[in-house]
């Protein structure tokens, strides 16, 4: 819950921007350039900040970034590990989810995949106090909507 002070001093927000940027690899060029430039945000400051803060990840891992651009051209951002859908796609070895979820299985992943993904996501901000089991259930749900089947083991 925000404190009263926080609410009163909250800067007016211009926009919320989301993009995927490789860890340690932000450059003032697409996709960062067009996405941030149009709100007059300092591209170099974002790149430098983002690159320094993602040094602990494997280089080029696609990180999910959410940027809050304020009306005074300042900004804040949070970085999360790649989205669950990205990990599932990787684990299942497919490029896109099934176009008819529930009908055609695009591919399969194992429970071990689900568990590994859950462990990574648990270190994201806002997920730290969620029990691993809940995170796993949520990932299994996402897999279903993508038409990805979850099996115990691969043959």
């Amino acid at each position, binding site marked *: 819950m925000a404190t009263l002070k926080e609410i009163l001093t909250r800067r007016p927000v211009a926009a919320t921007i989301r993009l995927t940027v490789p860890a340690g690899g932000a450059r003032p060029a*697409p996709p960062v*350039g067009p996405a941030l430039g149009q709100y007059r945000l300092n591209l170099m*400051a974002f790149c430098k900040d983002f690159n*320094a803060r993602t040094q602990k990840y494997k280089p080029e891992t696609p990180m999910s970034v959410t940027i809050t651009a304020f009306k005074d051209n300042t900004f804040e951002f949070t970085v999360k590990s790649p989205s669950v859908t990205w990990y599932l796609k990787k684990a299942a070895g497919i490029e896109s989810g099934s176009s008819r979820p529930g009908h055609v299985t695009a591919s399969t992943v194992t429970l071990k995949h689900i568990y590994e993904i859950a462990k990574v996501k648990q270190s994201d901000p806002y997920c730290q106090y969620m029990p691993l089991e809940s995170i796993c259930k949520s990932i299994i749900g996402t897999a279903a909507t993508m038409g990805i089947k979850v099996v115990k083991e691969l043959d």
Partner: protein
Amino acid sequence: ESPYLSVRICCQKLALDMFSEALLCFGASSTSVDEHDNDADENSDKIYIDSIFPECKDVDECILNAANSIGLKEIPRYEVKMGEQCNWIKKAQESFHPVEVTKGLWIVPEWSTPPDVQATNIILNPGLAFGTCEHATTKLCLLLLRSLIKGGELFLDYGTGSGILGIAAIKFGAAMFVGVDIDPQVIKSAHQNAALNNIGPKKIKLHLVPDRTFTASMNERVDGVVEYLSSHEIRGISETEEYDVVIANILLNPLPQLADHIVSYAKPGAVVGISGILSEQLPRIINRYSEFLEDILVSEMDDWRSVSGTKFSPI
């Protein structure tokens, strides 16, 4: 130069987060939701997402896949427009204003007039290279340079970006600056910035070097890199142990691997400065660089740190 597609999509407010994430998964480069667009329609259950796609993407397919992957009942309506690079570059440049780093030292974008003509003014066209005056680490390095340069020094800027540190060094009285970077775009920018500050070719030399850092997957390429370096490096950059001041303002990951290399350029007793690091990354840098440097000093600004020390002299 690199055109992109700007797509305005109308979707259900409730689906916003999941749909934005799905779009990014299936091909969008970025999504943004403007506050003012959506304020007017507080009672509406719809919201607009502005999404950017690379020109080559099949937007129809991407949106279809994204919608299906989260089980939307209807495919959201959308409108596709061509995006122009000049628009965002121009707007990004508008975020640069003259900045007073410390008393009497200003960084001024090329298109502004220096607020204090008497001060030391570094004119910059930041372009697409790193080295924004406003970043804490650049400021820390500028302050360090200011305290070190007395006149006539040879300065090596490892990771030169826009060339800002080298240009500052010359303005403070250094005799010459050599700038090194792994990005060819940077070499071009730094040359242009030097020219803006009337720094002639005798005082500045810029070199493109290969990215020497390697991760596990690059082990096979290490031999190749070492071979390249031994045949190119000696010819390209001045000999080791030549520089009075060496600064590397880059990032955490390459710094430990490059420690030997960076420090080798400094004369015994010369000062080496390291930055581009956050406070939690500091111990690792100090650990590594204390093998080569003594009298280590740390400066801080917000979450950022810089480290400087003197290279051990032979006993």
